[in-house]
């Protein structure tokens, strides 16, 4: 167990380093964007006096390293700073946006695993036959469709033509759960690609596992087919899928921007888009910290999961 502990410590330290790197990179990139919050705020009235005044009020006239240092000092006290455009604490932005994004991500994850694993196993069982070819080509085709196009298509058919579902979540605010119908299309769009990629990974892993000597051995012992598949072969097949799942969660948290914009769900993606447009650096930094930490924690979890599923394979730190 000490091996695991030192591995964990190394991983956490590495993760912390990665997060800091991400934040620094994001800060540098935002600085490199043309214009700053004052220019963005001034919009089509770029009165130089007004821009200078805004800059001074926002302390943007201070050099970049000073602003970064002030922000980092606050971060050590758990203070993410305040938004340049509204003066409200960044933490309130994150808190407001986190709920809807988390809800979407959780629902997607919950609904993601059963069909993906089911499809993967099914395809593997019928390897090379019609069903396998059907599943493989459909998953490949759906995977190739961008979310935005898929979303528009579903929206037009199911919300506007048939009128079965609401076209957007406009006006539902925080209480998305009270309007489950509004969640159907976004979740389907979010599911579409990960289900496909995951199913294909499970299929590949399953085929490999079913062909492995230890499954052949188990088969020789007369273990029934279902138990053989789910208790013996599947864990091995899931190891790469678990890694992929962690990446999917990353993507869900960061990449729901398209879905949020299309269906008007006020989550973190929307917060990020607005913050970038407004050059609201503290908010962008706050989001970078949150996304960075999430990515690190999730990958750590996935590695731990792999460790559990397949203890024989050495886990690379």
């Amino acid at each position, binding site marked *: 167990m000490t091996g695991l502990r030192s591995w964990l410590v190394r991983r956490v330290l590495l993760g912390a380093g990665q997060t800091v790197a991400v934040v620094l990179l994001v800060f540098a990139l935002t600085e490199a964007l043309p*214009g700053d919050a004052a220019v963005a705020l001034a919009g089509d009235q*770029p009165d130089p006096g007004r821009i200078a*005044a805004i800059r001074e009020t926002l302390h943007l006239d201070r050099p970049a390293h000073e602003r970064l240092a002030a922000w980092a000092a606050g971060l050590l006290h758990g203070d993410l700073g305040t*938004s340049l455009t509204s003066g409200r604490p960044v933490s309130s932005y994150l808190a407001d946006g986190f709920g809807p994004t988390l809800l979407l991500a959780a629902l997607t994850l919950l609904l993601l695993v059963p069909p993906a694993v089911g499809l993967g196993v099914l395809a593997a069982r019928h390897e090379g036959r019609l069903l396998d070819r059907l599943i493989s080509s459909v998953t490949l085709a759906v995977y190739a469709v961008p979310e935005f196009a898929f979303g528009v298509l579903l929206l037009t058919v199911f919300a506007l033509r048939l009128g079965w579902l609401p076209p957007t979540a406009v006006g539902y605010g925080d209480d998305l759960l009270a309007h489950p119908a509004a969640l159907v299309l976004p979740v389907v769009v979010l599911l579409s690609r990960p289900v496909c990629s995951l199913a294909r990974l499970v299929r590949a892993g399953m085929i490999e596992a079913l062909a492995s000597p230890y499954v052949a051995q188990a088969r020789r012992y007369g273990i029934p087919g279902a138990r053989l598949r789910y208790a013996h072969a599947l864990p091995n097949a899931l190891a790469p899928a678990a890694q992929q799942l962690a990446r999917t969660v990353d993507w869900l948290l960061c990449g729901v921007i398209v879905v949020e914009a299309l269906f008007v769900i006020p989550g973190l993606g929307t917060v990020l888009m607005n913050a970038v447009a*407004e050059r609201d650096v503290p908010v962008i930094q706050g989001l970078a910290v949150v996304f960075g930490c999430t990515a690190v924690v999730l990958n750590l979890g996935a590695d731990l999961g792999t460790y559990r599923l397949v203890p024989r394979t050495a886990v690379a730190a």
Partner: protein
Amino acid sequence: MYEGPVPDPRFPGLRRRGFLAAAGGVAGLGALALAGCTGPAGDAAEGGGKPRRGGKLRAAFAGGGASETLDPHLANLFADAARAKALFDKLADFGADLAAEPRLAASWEPNAALDRWTVRLRKATFHNGKPVTARDVLYSFRRIADPKKAFRAKASLEPLDLKASRAADEHTVEFALKRPTAEFPNILAAFGAYIVPDGATDFDTKPVGSGPFRFVSFTPGRSAVFRRNDDYWDGAPYLEQLEFLVANEESARLNSLLGGQVEYAHELTPTTARAHEGRGQIEIVRLRNSAMQAFAMKTDRPPFDDKRVREAFFLLTDRKELVDGALSGAGEIGNDLFGKGYEYYADGLPQREQDLDRARHLLKKAGADGLRVTLDTSAVAAGFTESAAIFRDQAAKAGVRVKVAMGSKDSYWQDTLDSGTLCCYRSGAMPIESHFSQRLLSGSTTNATKWHHKDFDALYQQAQSTRNKEDRAAVYARMQRRLYTEGGFLVWGFADWILGTARTVRGVAHRAPANTLDWARFDKVWLA
């Protein structure tokens, strides 16, 4: 100078009709032009049927995300302005012709020198029951003008000398001005010049205004819910509740309107309008003359420091093709002047037509054969990149090679203010006087055409010292003739502002350019 007509709460349409008639009677050139396109009918009565009380209207706007605030002085976006208009009042606001009409101010009266104006307030109360007084007005204006802050209306209030201004009594404010300002009412109607209670600083938890709606709840970037103010001085709104919702994507606003999730969608595209106009599913409202579309030539540097080159550019433009191509036909052609249809607009000048021969001739005379220019554009506003591409092809016919350069969306306005020689330009509605003072005087802070002419400045000052409106209109006409022949703005069109409403929505003004009083005004709207 102008005494506001007494509003009759039973017939909301009458007050506006009264005002427009009065304006038509006294104004010269500009107001006569206006009669043709504004008509006598009150906009508020449009849409048919008898107004009905009650109901909740949900309106979708593009918003500013989580950084939105209800502070009316910080209003920067259309969504901010619409919310501020529901909660707060200004002393004056702009009619469809961009002439200031009284709101909280019942009347305004200048002294002989036009540098002291006495404003009498009407009887109005804030949502907390306190009357709107001269102290509140002075507090609001001083807050906007605070040198340490950067409120948008600050530049508009610049002519006011707020230190020397005072409250003569509870309901009378005496404004001192730094110089004669005949167009003083425009200052009272400036974008963002809302009246808040004396001492108010916090607007996000419980804003108190004197507007037609009271505050209920607000979540930045998502929703703002207001309810009817039964004591509103201009008559209680018909709607029981009003909710502002934020949807940044045009497709999302349209879809939520089609799906019955909102009853009003702001800012739709011409393509959407064409697809849904007259189909019976939703109503499309086109607000004419809302946005000037132009190319700005920097008149202080080559090649545009030669007025023959500027004239050649005026002449090589096919305006109809630009309106059809870049605005998808949703607009009207321009005549190189700002403010078509507005008060004081010089509509007597001949419409400029494409004349390639003369353009070539002028370029040749100016020694600008085979001219190459860079046209700066960006996806910052609808039609910008399209208009640049169309113009490039038109210019090529006269032997001018235009290189289109794409700029950043978020810093475009500042980038093109001082640099470059030719750029795509757009402007929302404002009085022609404000267009002059903000963009065309030597001291203007956003002078994108670098138009610096002492005699032009002098004409502006002359207009501001002219008490008689017809004489003033004559001076404005002279200034516009000058801009028409050799100005830096190649105004090729005026875009419609397009809204969509559910079929049950009545009373939405059809003749209100964006930024005017009746635009996004919900106290005269009802649900059938």
